């Protein structure tokens, strides 16, 4: 059974040999640890994720990073360079395609061929495994910003090896956050083990004096996820990563839409993650935060989309997030053109510039919301630890199996799926149906009273249709869904 224990070096190296055989590009000489270490040590400071994030945190600045990825290397470089120079991106991604995310490298190869034939990207991302270390290195050398692999891959072991060996100094993902929202029937125990490996790799490089950044995926399904649930998953993944030797973390949260709830979430995310890391003895881990602009359905109108992107940027600035992942005016339609992607960046940076000098004052309402999140997270983490008899890895597996932890709208069959969220009268995300979620009656009553206030105001039942209306609302430029 899985354990939250640092993988021994020899076990790690033995696994490594096997992992690198999964696809021909795994055999590259550049993947020898010596070669990879020298590549990573040669990465200039301004392309080191951890360093650039540290500078931003010290300066109280929020950096912007887009999502972006296309099938072919030349077009991918053209895209990233445009987002850097025209969009003003501070950090660059490579969004990995969905075939690669499911280890279907053969279908990714088909996608590459089809893209050459059709002269447009037939893939929704950059097939980093197929392009191999050499291809990924070309991308790093062509840009002037730190590069991160962004994806949704339950088993990202080979992908992680390849991108780090190419000098990409950050990797997004986690055993829970890249399984429950991103897979159907992959055992949680397997994905957690795969991600212990990816973290152990970062731990290995750390031991060679190379600081790489790891970023658990905050927003989960991006659809009405209560902050306490995404925070609990983020903290679990932070602790699991720290155990494997990761020293630099970015924990994330997806915009909910209620400004006070979102700022409260951003502030508590940092304090709680730092608290729990210290509680478990990981005293030398740097914690930074990332705010994802609205991750649910977007309005089709491009001005409405830019307004939503700007509102998100106001919240990130108020919550002093270290980094913000941007969206684009094409979000509801499809993968954006480089121009649309740059529009999202420019709107975001405009707001961050205008808000950067302005402090966000505390208030009673903010402190109340923070206290609620803290209480909820403490209870969920306690239950997870408890059911794992002190082992967080075991705890996570069992908590999901029993619905003590439950993520709304998740495709994975490992998720109980009983939880039902909806917005209260002000638009804050609350829980209608707790399923077996490990929260006490006080908390349940609090959510219930807030939700019934809304139900009364709208003279409607609290039911799944209320949730559906809330899922559709923001795409219709409303926050609290109205009865159809």
């Amino acid at each position, binding site marked *: 059974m899985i354990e939250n224990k640092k993988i021994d070096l020899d076990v790690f190296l033995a696994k490594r040999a096997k992992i690198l055989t999964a696809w021909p590009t795994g055999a590259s000489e550049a993947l020898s640890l010596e070669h990879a270490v020298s590549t990573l040590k040669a990465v200039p400071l301004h392309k080191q994720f951890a360093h650039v994030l540290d500078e931003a945190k010290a300066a109280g600045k929020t950096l912007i990073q887009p999502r972006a990825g296309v099938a072919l290397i030349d077009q991918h470089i053209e895209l990233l360079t445009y987002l850097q120079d025209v969009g003003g991106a501070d950090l660059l991604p490579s969004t990995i395609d969905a075939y690669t995310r499911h280890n279907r490298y053969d279908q990714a190869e088909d996608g590459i061929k089809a893209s050459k034939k059709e002269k447009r990207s037939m893939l929704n991302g950059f097939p980093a495994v197929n392009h191999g270390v050499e291809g990924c290195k070309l991308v790093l050398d062509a840009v002037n910003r730190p590069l991160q692999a962004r994806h949704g891959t339950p088993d990202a072991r080979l992908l992680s090896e390849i991108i780090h060996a190419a000098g990409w100094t950050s990797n997004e993902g986690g055993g829970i956050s890249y399984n429950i929202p991103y897979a159907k029937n992959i055992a949680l125990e397997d994905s957690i083990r795969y991600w212990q490996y990816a973290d152990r790799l970062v731990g290995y490089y750390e031991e060679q004096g190379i600081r790489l950044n790891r970023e658990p995926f905050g927003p989960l399904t991006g659809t009405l996820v209560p902050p306490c649930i995404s925070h609990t998953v983020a903290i679990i993944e932070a602790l699991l990563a720290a155990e494997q030797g990761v020293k630099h973390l970015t924990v994330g949260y997806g915009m909910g839409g209620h400004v006070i709830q979102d700022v409260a979430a951003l502030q508590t995310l940092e304090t709680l993650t730092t608290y729990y890391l210290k509680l478990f003895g990981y005293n030398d881990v740097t914690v930074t935060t990332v705010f994802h602009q609205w991750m649910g359905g977007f309005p089709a109108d491009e001005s409405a989309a830019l307004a939503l992107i700007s509102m998100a940027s106001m919240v990130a600035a108020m919550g002093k997030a270290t980094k913000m992942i941007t969206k684009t005016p094409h979000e509801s339609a*499809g993968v954006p053109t480089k121009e649309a992607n740059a529009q999202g960046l420019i709107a975001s940076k405009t707001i961050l510039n205008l808000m950067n000098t302005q402090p966000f004052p505390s208030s009673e309402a903010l402190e109340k919301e923070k206290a609620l999140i803290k209480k909820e997270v403490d209870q969920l983490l306690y239950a997870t630890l408890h059911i794992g008899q002190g082992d967080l890895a075991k705890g996570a597996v069992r908590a999901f199996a029993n619905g003590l932890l439950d993520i709304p709208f998740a*495709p994975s069959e490992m998720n109980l799926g009983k939880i039902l969220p909806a917005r209260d009268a002000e638009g804050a995300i609350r829980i209608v149906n707790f399923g077996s979620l490990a929260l006490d009656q006080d908390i349940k009553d609090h959510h219930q009273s807030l939700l019934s206030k809304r139900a009364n105001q709208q003279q409607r039942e609290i039911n799944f249709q209320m949730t559906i209306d809330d899922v559709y609302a923001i795409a219709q430029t409303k926050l609290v869904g109205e009865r159809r």
Partner: protein
Amino acid sequence: MKTVVIGVIGADVHAVGNKIIHHVLEEAGFHVVNIGVLSTQEDFIHAAIETNAEAILVSSLYGHGEMDCLYFKQKCVEAGLNHVKLYVGGNIVVGKQDFKAVEARFKKMGFDRVYPPGANIESALEEIKQDLGML
């Protein structure tokens, strides 16, 4: 009760729309067979055969719709499902493309009705009921 098969095709994990389509079609009086995300063409076909479905509603959100739906109609025909209505919707191609061209592409692939991004299931209900003779 008319039976319809719904699911999300290919290496696509988008589940939110699928869960809402499931609920809305049930409320509208359909017997819904939901094969969920990450479904293959074969999953759709088997489900349709087993449940004697009159329609297959394919969702593709993640962009690889064209590759994942290739030859789907032929396979349906080979499996004796020629009479089964084929619908496809979501964000069925990569990026913002002119819908007229996209619709033509998928109609040529054998789909009876093709829906653009943003066309939620509620707005398609009328047409589906009409096609299945429920109005």
